[in-house]
């Protein structure tokens, strides 16, 4: 691979990390002011805030890669140009994070599947020889450790709570399980510029088993897994998320905010 190609892979990888954290932040933020109880409203908003912070770090790095490359644009890339002016087909987030909040069960389960994956990912990434990515991963790991603990506790509470909460968790598993395969299946750019998540698939699954056991929830059998988000083929939800997210920048181009 030429240097040029490696930079392109690195860029795709950074954008993938940035998009994934941004979209989940956007989804979680929908709860702000509407949570089931004040303490949890604060908790989910806090996670949203952590994730947008991580997204900013990854976008800033991606912008740096673009601005240093041979075919740099006339207007330098920024964290905002990358988040606000790319289209549905350019976004590289995993499908899981763009799925709707629905109820607290689905939001919690999405967070648990994701944080479980992100925790393993950042542990690997902090050893990366790309020092910038390693530094972001290392810095974020403390936050992610908390997200994982918080969401695991809620999976257990809801799974082993009332008949209704248990039923809602089963429904959430039914909705979301099909999007978990993609988290652990590497896109080309992940293999070449980052960490291959299939390497930690066993640890991911064993954490799910441990938490689901305690929550008295069944781990689904092998089913067909949806994928495509990492390479820009999304579910129909993403277009609406971006419409809202990008509205001001699209309506008032070339303005400072």
């Amino acid at each position: 691979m030429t240097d040029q190609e490696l930079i392109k892979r690195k860029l795709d990888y950074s954008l993938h990390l940035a998009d994934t954290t941004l979209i989940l932040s956007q989804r979680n933020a929908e709860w702000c002011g509407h949570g089931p109880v004040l303490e949890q409203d604060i908790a989910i908003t806090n996670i949203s805030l952590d994730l947008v912070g991580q997204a900013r770090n990854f976008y800033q790095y991606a912008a740096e890669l673009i601005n240093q490359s041979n075919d740099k644009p006339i207007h330098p890339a920024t964290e905002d140009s990358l988040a606000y002016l790319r289209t549905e087909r350019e976004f590289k987030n995993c499908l899981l994070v763009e799925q709707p909040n629905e109820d607290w069960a689905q939001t919690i389960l999405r967070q648990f599947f994701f944080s479980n994956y992100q925790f393993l990912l950042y542990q690997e990434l902090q050893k990366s020889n790309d020092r910038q990515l390693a530094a972001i991963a290392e810095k974020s790991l403390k936050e992610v450790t908390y997200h994982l603990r918080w969401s695991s506790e809620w999976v257990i509470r809801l799974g082993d709570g009332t008949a209704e909460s248990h039923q809602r968790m089963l429904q959430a598993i039914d909705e979301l399980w099909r999007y978990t395969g993609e988290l652990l299946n590497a896109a080309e750019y992940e293999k070449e510029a980052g960490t291959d998540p299939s390497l930690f698939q066993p640890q991911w699954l064993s954490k799910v088993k441990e938490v689901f056991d305690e929550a008295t929830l069944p781990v689904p059998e092998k089913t067909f897994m949806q994928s495509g988000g990492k390479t820009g083929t999304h579910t129909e939800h993403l277009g609406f998320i971006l419409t809202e997210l990008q509205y001001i920048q699209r309506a008032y181009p070339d303005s400072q905010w």
Partner: protein
Amino acid sequence: MPVQDFEQLFQDKIDNEIKIEPKDWMPEAYRKTNIRQISQHAHSEIVGMLPEGNWISRAPSLKRKAILLAKVQDEAGHGLYLYSAAETLGMPREEMINDLHSGKAKYSSIFNYPTLTWADIGAIGWLVDGAAIMNQVMLTRTSYGPYARAMVRICKEESFHQRQGFEILLVLSRGTTAQKAMCQDAINRWWWPALMMFGPKDSESTNSDQSMKWKIKRKTNDELRQNFVDMIAEQIKTLGMKLPDDQLKWNTERKHYDFGEIDWDEFWQVVKGNGPCNKQRLEARRKAWENGEWVREAAAAYARKRADRQKDKAA
């Protein structure tokens, strides 16, 4: 000791600037007034999350999004301290929340106005938080200890929010023609409702005298409102914008700004529930609470199971 002596002792403490603490004797009316005021304040923080939360998903940059998220989260935190302060007077949080949802308890009318553009987020920070701070700085010296201490923490964060709001407007005021227009429009819409936040005129205010005597309040509505006008009339010069009041003018004798008359009819209409968003705000809060019921039940059921299991283990 006869009640009269207790009352004398209580008033002596107040006159000597000794804080009243939860376990101290206090007149029933003092307790009730504080519960009413603190819970109303807590509700305002919680309902106030809605108009601003409205713009989190559409914030124009990642930095603004992060700042706004943190701000709305701070408000939830303020709500939490304030509910706790009110609970020290013997009112459970759930009961306060039920009173909000039934319409029995009030919250600040300002949050019944809509946030229509991004500039409204700046105007709320600058004008609404600015007006709130006037009131809250006074409340850091209020006579009920837990309330005063909650206010000290809250004030620090609020003044930060006010600066952030002003900064949003400052950027807009130096931006494109469309941004400048957006900025002026937001100021036009929020100015009068912000002035209304200080409540009725002193001559019309029913709760004021007793609250001043008990040092729950330490400045009158009109005094606070005047301080606010004086502050904003100066700050707006930096923005190069105008306040929507033809009568606003520096009075050299009074050493204060004169300003026009508030539309008191609008004020009372919004208090009575006829503001542009009263219905939506309450509905949003009720819906969040109702949708959360199964979650709270599940958490309680799980906590009971766990406690039982631990008991079994110990036995």
